[in-house]
């Protein structure tokens, strides 16, 4: 007798075996009462499993779908929110940095970034020479420099008399 074709008995029952394999199982079953019993019992169990009442506890499908959408929205929300957060500060920081550089250049003049020189004396010289700009500090602070860079170019023509 051939070895028991144990794990081929279920595929045999379901008609999933190729012709040669099926023939081999048929041959074995013809001489093996133990496997015939197994096939018969497996068929009964498969039928019971198919017919037995649904074992999973019932749930409310409307609530299931609502909760599913809630979870889906929650998963998608952090991505969208994260973009807003990440896009916001970067341009603001860049603009602030750029404005600081422009303001520095505007106050110190184009040679301010050249290397060398005594910075303290340079600052003193600038303060002495450009006190008119510093005296307009209130005006400068009131200008929204971070949003309107053109104002920086027009700082010099702006006199305290124009303020009013």
């Amino acid at each position, binding site marked *: 007798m051939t070895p028991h074709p*144990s*794990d*081929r*008995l*279920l*595929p045999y029952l*379901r008609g*999933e075996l190729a012709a040669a394999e099926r023939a081999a199982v048929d041959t074995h079953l013809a001489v093996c009462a133990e496997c015939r*019993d*197994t096939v*018969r*019992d*497996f068929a*009964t*169990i*498969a039928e*019971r*499993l*198919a*017919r*037995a*009442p*649904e*074992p*999973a*506890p019932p*749930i409310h*499908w409307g609530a*299931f*779908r609502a*909760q*599913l959408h809630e*979870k*889906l929205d929650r*998963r998608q929300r952090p991505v969208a929110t994260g973009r807003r957060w990440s896009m916001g500060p970067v341009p603001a920081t860049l603009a602030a940095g750029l404005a600081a550089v422009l303001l520095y250049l505007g106050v110190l003049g184009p040679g301010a970034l050249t290397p060398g020189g005594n910075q303290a004396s340079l600052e003193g010289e600038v303060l002495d020479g450009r006190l008119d700009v510093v005296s307009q500090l209130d005006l400068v602070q009131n200008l929204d420099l971070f949003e309107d860079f053109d104002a920086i170019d027009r700082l010099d023509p702006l006199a305290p008399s124009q303020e009013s």
Partner: protein
Amino acid sequence: MERSDEALCRDVANREPGAFDLLVERYQERAYRIAWSVVRDREDAKDCAQEAFIRLHDAAGSFAGESKFSTWFYRILVNCCLDHRRRGRGWRRLLVWRDAEDEDQTSDLVERQPAPPDDPGERMDEDQKMSRIWEAVETLSPQQRAAVTLQCREGLATKEIASVLGTSEATVRVHLHRAFATLRRRVGGTP
């Protein structure tokens, strides 16, 4: 004419309004039932089924159409369930000595023993057997339960179950044979 599951999945990938909801309605009960067969807990099964739908929503574009939609989706679902079980098992191992795999090995040892003589006096009647069959399924390993549910409730062929479980057809045959042998031992076979 009703749109096929495969066409609906493509619609989900293209973010067509309503396509996702339609697929959910078609598959929600099956998804929950299969998830429950693996995790055996109402809330966990619901979570796993919902997670599978969320993954479907996100990955619909990767469905190549080489298999049936149901096979592709069940694979996502079973992976969710097995992931869930693996996450939980780490904790359970601290609390119990044996997990389902150990039990599986034990049952293999039992399987090798000769069958006890059949005692007609102790045999349950058919109704009792019907009601006890799913209780007996609970004693199987998660992979065995998934294979049994997919075959006996969802009607999947062994080849499809192999694709869902991400394993070979031979392994599925072994899972199913061991599962049926255990059920036969616990509930009996012929009425």
